[in-house]
């Protein structure tokens, strides 16, 4: 007969009521890539445009013929892969941030206006939104990018032109719910005009949703940009962009795998980090948004 000491359950930290643990890894990855993008001129070992045809398709340092001169190898023009991936992060993150902010600003405004005014304004704006949402994203972006010509600004605009609709839809839905609450009526009774109600009462109450949507979409935008660049409709060469780097390596994937694989890995890491962060934000800030 022995009395077994039951380990104290209370010693374990209480699970948080809402959400999961802070995704340190995601935040870490994002922070590292943002730093890399900001400090690219300082960090990169060489010039991303410098070619050296004698040093084409050098493998990364851990492979047989690799050397520390090019730690991640070189591409078919003998350009340093590490340098190009570092500079490529600027393109991906800048496009991601700018396109999402632009789309968010436009979409949120349209959603707020549609939800607040209702009636015909709402109907008209939502039909446009539906029409935009019914287009396949890549196809529309491709058409836009090709017709206006590939450039950084055009890629940002092309992506924003497609993505605003999602914000508009979600924000409008939230505004409709908010409009039934008495504090909006109370504000109106207190003499607040449309501008005041939209900016002071509706917008602050939709910020949670906006933050979640923006974070979740950064990853998506990076993929869209990479796809456009891969298809040659994105950032024009020779500017290093992860998507076009993958495209450049696709013919030699069997012999020089690193040319495609390494930029692909970078995309994977960043997108995954943003998605996990977005998921966590959604669960923490706004559990009602499960469907996003």
């Amino acid at each position: 007969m022995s009395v077994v000491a039951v380990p104290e359950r209370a010693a374990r930290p209480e699970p948080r009521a809402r959400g999961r643990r802070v995704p340190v890894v995601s935040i870490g990855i994002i922070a590292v890539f943002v730093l890399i993008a900001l400090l690219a001129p300082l960090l990169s070992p060489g010039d991303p445009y410098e070619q050296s045809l004698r040093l084409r398709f050098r493998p990364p340092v851990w492979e047989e013929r690799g050397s520390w001169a090019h730690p991640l190898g070189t591409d078919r023009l003998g350009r340093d892969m590490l340098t190009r991936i570092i500079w490529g992060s600027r393109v991906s993150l800048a496009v991601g941030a700018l396109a999402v902010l632009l789309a968010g600003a436009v979409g949120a405004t349209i959603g707020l206006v549609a939800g607040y005014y209702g009636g015909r304004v709402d109907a008209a704006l939502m039909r446009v939104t539906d029409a935009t949402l019914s287009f396949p994203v890549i196809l529309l972006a491709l058409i836009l990018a090709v017709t206006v010509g590939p450039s950084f600004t055009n890629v940002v605009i092309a992506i924003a032109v497609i993505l605003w609709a999602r914000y508009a839809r979600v924000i409008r839905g939230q505004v409709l719910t908010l409009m039934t609450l008495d504090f909006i009526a109370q504000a109106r009774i207190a003499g607040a005009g449309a501008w005041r109600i939209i900016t002071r009462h509706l917008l602050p109450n939709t910020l949670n949703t906006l933050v979640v949507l923006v974070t979740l979409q950064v990853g998506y935008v990076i993929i869209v940009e990479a796809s456009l660049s891969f298809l040659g409709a994105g950032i024009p060469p020779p500017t290093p962009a992860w998507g076009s780097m993958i495209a450049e390596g696709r013919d030699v994937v069997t012999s020089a795998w690193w040319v495609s694989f390494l930029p692909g890995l970078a995309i994977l890491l960043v997108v995954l980090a943003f998605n996990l962060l977005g998921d966590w934000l959604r669960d923490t800030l706004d559990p009602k948004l499960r469907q996003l």
Partner: protein
Amino acid sequence: MSAVIDVRDLRTHIVTRWGTIKAVDGVSFALGEAETLGLVGESGSGKSMTCLSIVRLVPRPAARIVGGAVLLDGNDLLKKTDDEMQRIRGRTVAMILQDPMSSLNPVFSIGMQMREPLTMYHGLRGRAVLARAAELLASVSIPSPAARLRAFPHQLSGGMRQRVVGAMAIAGPPRLLIADEPTTSLDLTIQAQYLGLLKELQQRHRFAMIFVTHNLGIVARTCDRVAVMYAGRIVEIGPVRRIFAQPAHPYTRALLESIPRFGARRERLAAIAGQPPDLATLAAGCAFAPRCPAAFERCVEAPPETEVVPGHATRCWLHVLP
């Protein structure tokens, strides 16, 4: 009596797919300083629509104010421009709504929300705003008001929140306060306190008050006069005591009989037979006639407003002298 608010033959129609609803159909009443009118009637009788028409916030475009006059200290609110009206709302005519749980913006602290009316109405800035806000909270008996300014709505109880709404409503201070069932969602003891508070504020600021409610008990306690609405019309209006003692309209009588009374013999409460009328398909005559125990041939015509005694009027053929 110089009237603070004088509503004359107010008419508000709602256009729907099934026809035009006369939600407010010729409502008239007047109120003096520090006077309270109870507006009672069942759901859909036009009480809230009357109040919204006074502040011109009827749900557009379906609802439209089609006629009448709303004189506030002699100025017709229906003739004001939208901008003028926006300045009148809140400042001169304030309103308290039913649900204290949702009548404050959840993402701003109490202080931030109170700043809004104070800056809008009085142009106060900086410290003066906070000082005045704390003063207002104190005047609605909120303990440690300065600390409460930093609280968020979810940290306050329902009664407390409704007090904050009250404090914002008297920021003007208003000439007319419309309270649309302000105590329905509060529990009974808090209700009594809140009603006491409203009366106290009224004595201090001398505003006229329109009190919308289903609850005749509240009317008896807080109002000077009562207007009973049915199908968009005031069917009876007069001093509270008089109407409780000698209701003239069969509908008012039925309403009073359906209140449980303390100490009365236990028997089934009298209910009013039938359903509230469908306002879209209203016949020309008295709207209550189909449910009225005393209905007779003349009820197919609309009854005129008749004074039973001075100050007590009703719309019922029973009181029209032949």
